[in-house]
């Protein structure tokens, strides 16, 4: 397999050195990174509780993932990865002064966020049909706690993407001034990163 891609530039638009906003800088602003680290710490605590619970109830954590809907988990991962990709494309578009294109990419990201929420709600209904509820056992308690918490993050992060679309439409985010947009993008990617760990913990590893 040979892949010779000639334009491996940051975001596919210009080289890294032509985009000084990213070089040795805090992407977005300090405030959003305080939020991101706080959220990452919250998820870290969930993961620690998961490790301890799994050590105490190995049978439940071994059998639990087998009854979950792996397809739903996989489709949700696809939706989140694609949405992150679309958000990065939207940021690339505003950097080359194409706000209309940026808005289109953001709408795609919002759609992916919506797809995630729809799949998750459907999955919860499916679970109930299979007899999987919050108090079925310790594994499913962890599953509902982690995934519902993550679902809330996807919900309000989708709202922030809608806000970014509004700001682009009214011309407040421009090629020269889009730090707020970068901050929103970083937060969205953080939500994706949390799922990168949650998906294998709950659906894959036994």
């Amino acid at each position, binding site marked *: 397999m040979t*892949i010779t891609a000639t334009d*491996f530039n940051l975001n596919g638009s210009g080289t890294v050195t032509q985009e000084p906003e990213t070089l040795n800088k805090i992407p977005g602003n300090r405030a959003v990174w305080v939020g991101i680290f706080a959220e990452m710490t919250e998820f870290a605590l969930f993961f620690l509780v998961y490790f*301890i619970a799994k050590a105490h109830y190995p049978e439940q954590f071994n059998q639990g993932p087998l009854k979950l809907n792996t397809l739903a988990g996989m489709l949700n991962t696809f939706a989140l990865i694609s949405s992150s990709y679309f958000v990065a494309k939207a940021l690339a578009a505003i950097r080359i002064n194409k706000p209309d294109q940026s808005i289109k990419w953001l709408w795609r990201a919002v759609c992916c966020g919506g797809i995630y929420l729809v799949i998750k709600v459907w999955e919860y209904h499916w679970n109930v049909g299979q007899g999987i509820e919050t108090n079925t056992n310790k594994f499913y308690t962890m599953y509902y706690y982690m995934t519902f918490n993550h679902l809330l993050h996807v919900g309000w992060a989708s709202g922030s993407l809608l806000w970014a679309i509004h700001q682009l439409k009214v011309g407040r985010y421009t090629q020269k001034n889009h730090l707020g947009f970068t901050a929103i993008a970083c937060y969205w990617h953080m939500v994706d*990163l949390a799922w990168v760990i949650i998906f*294998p913990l709950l659906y894959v*590893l036994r």
Partner: protein
Amino acid sequence: MIIKNSTLSALDLSWILLMTITTANAFVAETAEPSLAITALICGSIAYKGRRIMDYFMELNHANSTIQFFMRSYFHVFPAMIFLSDLFSEELAALTAL
């Protein structure tokens, strides 16, 4: 697959790789029996996916070094902890028993 002189960006390639790894993870979930080797493989995929998202989607690969350090550490520490908590599950249970 041969792609020559394309305008495939790091972003596009990252998206393709992440989708492929996710599909492989789901395949493992459906077919493989649990073992330490599988756990190690999944932990490796978590670390790689996290790094890819941070470097190319979040653009941390040339950003502030402190943020870069903490974010990258997170995706080294947690995959390692997943593996170690599997490897030493009995010791962890004994250590955390009330």
